[in-house]
């Protein structure tokens, strides 16, 4: 009854859709300002310029070179120490030891997680080790490392390995565990096992977590290295960027201290926003795997 009312009340109708090619893409263009304001880098650049301005003004008002030299002095010091070759040498020393420790940490993490995914003993081993060592700040190992290996780069490398190994291993392992059952079955369907299975199925499938682990590992390693050099550099005399900071503070060359800090930030930003961003864009973003 009710249906009759509904179905007879209004007449049927038919439209005549025209080919989409005839009217092209219908879209509303953004205004020039909207386009400009949509550029993330531009908005961030504005924030940076604002901060530099505040720093400059505050530095000039307080006018105390020992507490806060203005931004312009810091920049001058920065370029001066690049020109006289000291800063590049220090940066290079830091980067060299960092890459060594980072690479060794990542390789060890790879070995540990491969073991953990293929054997039950390996799994227990990884879980026990990570829960033991992950909460231990890497810098706390420095005194021991200095005792065991002396004032050698090896001591720094040990501390760096410690700071990279656990976060990378933890993330990689949880990434491996989260690989979908379907994808695992697909891999086994092709007769893949052992290393081939890990390399061709698990690593790419878990790549979002692995990349997250690599980023965390990098952040830990970089902070740890600078902190370690503040201690380590004093005793050996020839060190990296951390030592550059301490040394200039000791001679009250404060603009150079700020230039050192500035370099630490610049390198951090470069690795995070250029290197890791590029890797991300070429891998997980392209594959539609980014969360």
């Amino acid at each position, binding site marked *: 009854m009710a249906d009759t009312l509904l179905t007879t009340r209004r007449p049927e109708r038919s439209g005549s859709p025209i080919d989409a090619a005839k009217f092209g893409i219908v879209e509303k263009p953004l205004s020039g300002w909207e386009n400009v304001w949509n550029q993330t880098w531009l908005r961030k650049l504005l924030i940076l310029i604002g901060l530099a301005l505040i720093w400059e003004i505050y530095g000039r008002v307080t006018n105390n070179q020992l507490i806060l030299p203005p931004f312009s002095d810091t920049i001058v010091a920065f370029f001066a120490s690049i020109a006289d070759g000291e800063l590049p040498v220090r940066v290079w020393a830091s980067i060299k030891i960092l890459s060594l420790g980072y690479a060794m940490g990542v390789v060890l993490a790879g070995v540990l997680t491969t073991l953990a995914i293929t054997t039950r003993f390996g799994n227990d081993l990884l879980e026990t080790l990570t829960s033991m060592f992950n909460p231990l700040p890497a810098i706390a190992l420095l005194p021991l490392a200095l005792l065991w290996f002396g004032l050698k780069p090896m001591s720094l490398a040990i501390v760096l390995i410690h700071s990279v190994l656990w976060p990378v291993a933890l993330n990689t392992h949880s990434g491996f565990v989260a690989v979908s059952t*379907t994808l695992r*079955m*697909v891999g086994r*369907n092709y*007769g*893949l096992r052992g290393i081939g299975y890990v390399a061709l199925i698990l690593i790419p*499938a878990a790549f979002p977590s692995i990349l997250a682990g690599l980023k965390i590992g990098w952040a830990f390693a970089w902070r740890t290295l600078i902190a370690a050099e503040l201690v380590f550099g004093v005793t050996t005399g020839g060190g990296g960027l951390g030592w550059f900071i301490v040394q200039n503070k000791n001679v009250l060359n404060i603009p150079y201290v700020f230039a050192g800090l500035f370099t630490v930030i610049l390198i951090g930003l470069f690795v995070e926003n250029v290197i890791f961003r590029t890797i991300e864009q070429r891998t997980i973003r392209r*594959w*539609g795997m980014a969360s």
Partner: protein
Amino acid sequence: MATTAADLSDLGLTKPLLSVSGVTLQYKTRDHQVTATYRVGFEVYPSERYVILGPSGCGKSTLLKAVGGYITPTEGTIRLGGAIVRQPGADRMMVFQEFDQLMPWKTVKQNVKFPLISSGTLRGDAAEERALAYIEKVNLTKFADNYPHTLSGGMKQRVAIARAMAMEPAILLMDEPFAALDALTRRKMQDELLELWDETRFTMIFVTHSIVEALRVGSRILLLSPHPGQVKAELNSIERDAPDREEAIRTLESRIHEMLFADKVEAEGAHG
């Protein structure tokens, strides 16, 4: 259409390709041992489109995974061409229901090429050629260089089918490949699958819980009863060029429906 002995041997229908006999499958959950199927036996002949049909809980997917070599039967044997199935292998390519069976880090073409290369079947140009040929068969040539996340669900399943078929396996195992698709796409995919069969006459086992899909896609249908899965019946489907096909399909559909429904009434009666 009268079939002669010559026709049968033409299709290779003289001896079974796959024989499953007395297979009981069990798996453990956290606190139970579940029997998925109990003493199931069936045979699949070359070029058959063999459908395993049953309600959820009849162990049909588990049975297919056992044929795939992922599960070892508690009793009974599964033989493919005489050899006992013990582990997964590229001679039994699987197509799954889930869209994430494609590797998101590989393009359509790379996905289709991957098993060819990793199993050592083909290399270099030969693998490329074979992959492109099967991508064309599923009408995805334009999308060969796309990554899976840019494709629709139906297209992803077509890639999975192309990938499995490119290996030219002894038998194709399809685990509800169209279940996650919308009704219109599903219908279209069924027709495309039959077109592919007309071209290459591959052997497949197709698992589904839809009676309509079973009748449309299959040539022979194994009906399983639930909890645990046991053989209820094995029926022939309606030939695609049969006169009054629609009518015959409707009759068979209601016959199957009754068989499954009778079970339910009994079960409900037993509970009450």
